């Protein structure tokens, strides 16, 4: 059935520090009409409708497939509550790095007019207003890497959280610092780290959710600094990409090496939270930080009940058309 399936955006980007497994971990293929979707992990053929109702978690093996920013927003925050900001700056190619301008070109044709994989805005989760960030791993085939625009948007989002006294919730997915901006890319680690220092000084709750993949400079900066850190099951969470890791090992790594579960076992993640439970978990967490824990009934219905937008990338920026 070679013609039956169409290719989804490649997940195996060639951004800096994205050294994840050579074989794309989560390539999803679907019938042109979108009737069927094949699980990237176990190969199960799923009804796309069911697959999306399950928030792109394989009903057979539980694999959490990567999401676009819009899918994440639609399936996490209260319907219609997302208000985006941060697209009033634009990326440069400060080093004239090979192929970088081509990627930035790709970004400039983003249907949502976005300037980076990091999407920032305000949103409500279970009625709790927060600054909400999510990294789109697919954006411009840049693997959610941290360039100058990433760092600036992160900082502006944190600043907004401070000035408006809102908690900051961030979904990470990143190959690390953006090689194509050289040292400027590396310095986004310092910049986001400093930004988290300012959040801490202002006692603003900062909550990270690590999704597949959170590696390299991302994990070694903003993604490890949440007051609370959650992670999706099975996500690749590590400093070294798996290829680098394989070369470097003098010690046989465990079976769950460099996954959420491995990091949880070793004390770096507070809780591994299945996708369908993240909204309620965040809602309760935000309520804790807001000053009172809401009972479960006060939060929005479990996100599995929310119908996703038919085409995730077509969802409007403010989420006004998301959900049912």
């Amino acid at each position: 059935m070679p013609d039956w399936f169409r290719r989804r955006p490649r997940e195996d980007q060639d951004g800096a520090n994205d050294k994840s497994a050579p074989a794309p971990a989560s390539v999803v293929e679907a019938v042109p009409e979108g009737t069927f979707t094949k699980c990237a992990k176990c190969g199960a053929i799923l009804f796309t409708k069911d697959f999306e109702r399950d928030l792109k978690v394989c009903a057979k093996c539980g694999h959490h497939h990567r999401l676009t920013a819009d899918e994440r927003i639609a399936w996490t925050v209260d319907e219609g509550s997302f208000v985006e900001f941060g697209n009033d700056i634009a990326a440069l190619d400060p080093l004239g790095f090979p192929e970088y301008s081509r990627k930035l070109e790709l970004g400039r044709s983003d249907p949502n007019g976005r300037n980076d994989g990091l999407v920032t805005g305000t949103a409500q989760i279970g009625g709790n207003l927060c600054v909400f960030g999510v990294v789109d791993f697919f954006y411009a085939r840049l693997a959610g890497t941290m360039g100058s625009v990433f760092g600036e948007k992160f900082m502006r989002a944190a600043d907004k959280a401070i000035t408006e006294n809102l908690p900051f919730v961030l979904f990470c997915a990143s190959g690390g610092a953006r090689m194509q901006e050289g040292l400027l890319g590396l310095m986004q680690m310092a910049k986001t780290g400093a930004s988290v220092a300012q959040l801490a000084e202002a006692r603003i709750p900062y909550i990270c959710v690590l999704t597949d993949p959170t590696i390299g400079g991302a994990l070694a900066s903003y993604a490890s600094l949440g007051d609370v850190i959650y992670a999706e099951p099975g996500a690749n969470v590590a400093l070294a990409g798996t290829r680098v890791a394989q070369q470097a090992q003098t010690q046989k790594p465990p079976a769950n090496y460099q996954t959420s579960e491995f990091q949880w076992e070793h004390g770096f993640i507070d809780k591994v939270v299945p996708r369908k439970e993240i909204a309620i978990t965040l809602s309760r967490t935000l309520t804790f930080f807001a000053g009172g824990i809401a009972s479960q009934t006060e939060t929005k219905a479990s996100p599995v009940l929310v119908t996703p937008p038919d085409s995730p990338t077509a969802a409007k920026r403010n989420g006004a058309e998301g959900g049912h």
Partner: protein
Amino acid sequence: MEDMNILEFEQAIAELNLEIGKLRTAAQRERRSDGEVQANALEKRRDELTTQFFARLEPWDEVLLARHKDRPYSLDYIPFLTEDFIELHGDRLFGDDGALVGGMAAMSGDPVILIGQQKGRDLKERQKRNFGYVRPEGYRKALRLMQLGEKFRRPIVTLVDTPGADPNVGSEERGISEAIAHNLREMAALRTPTIAVIIGEGGSGGALGIAVADRVLMLEHSIYSVIAPEGCASILWRDPSRGPDAAKAMRITAKDAKRLGLADEIVTEPLGGAHHDPEGTAAAIREALQRHLNELSALSPSALLAQRFAKLRGFGQFLSAPFA
């Protein structure tokens, strides 16, 4: 000589030196003055060649110089930078990392906390120093010492020289990413002057983990890079041997960092590189350190922090709306 790399060049210079030596010995033994004249001419030629060669160093030559086996390491400089260094060990959590040394010292009588990444010269020492790859314990020891410095308002000087953070299983297990991230946040907010000096290899997040500072100085032939050139070449061209191209593309030299505003000063090395005169190089570093410390010490802690945050927040190059 155009395509000669630094190692071949040094070989040629060494041969010249051998010849000069022979001529001198023969001239003295035989009491002939023409041998002396020949030797002097060869010496002049050697110095001209060296000057010419060093005037046109390629980025890859800088990589080779920064990694040169004879290049002075932190512990080579420390006796010339400070007096009465007392090395303090351990992170008070798990262990003592040989790849990162630190302690109390004085610079012309003024107490400072000195921290340095440390490579080893012979095999035994290399193993002890983990080839300069810093483990979580190293970053946590560094942070403990920095916090000791902050508590007693002692300035902090770090010497940066690492191929990168240790990517092995044990380091992933013990949170190498967390350790670096944690340092980035804490160093941003230390209420005491901080200066980082890149003395050799400024390897990615592994370097940055002790290099967030009020001032960043770079030795003339040190490098500072978002990813090792070989790693970059692997990702870009699937060919690690194209490191020289990657070194060029990523702009990893001290001059590049200065031009990008990410290094505050370049400390000149003796002709031929720091290994030709470690003590002289140390004197140049010390002069620069004292000048910057004098400037920083004049600031109140809040002015110091305001300046540091302004700097960190300014990292990055992007366009602001309205776009051209």
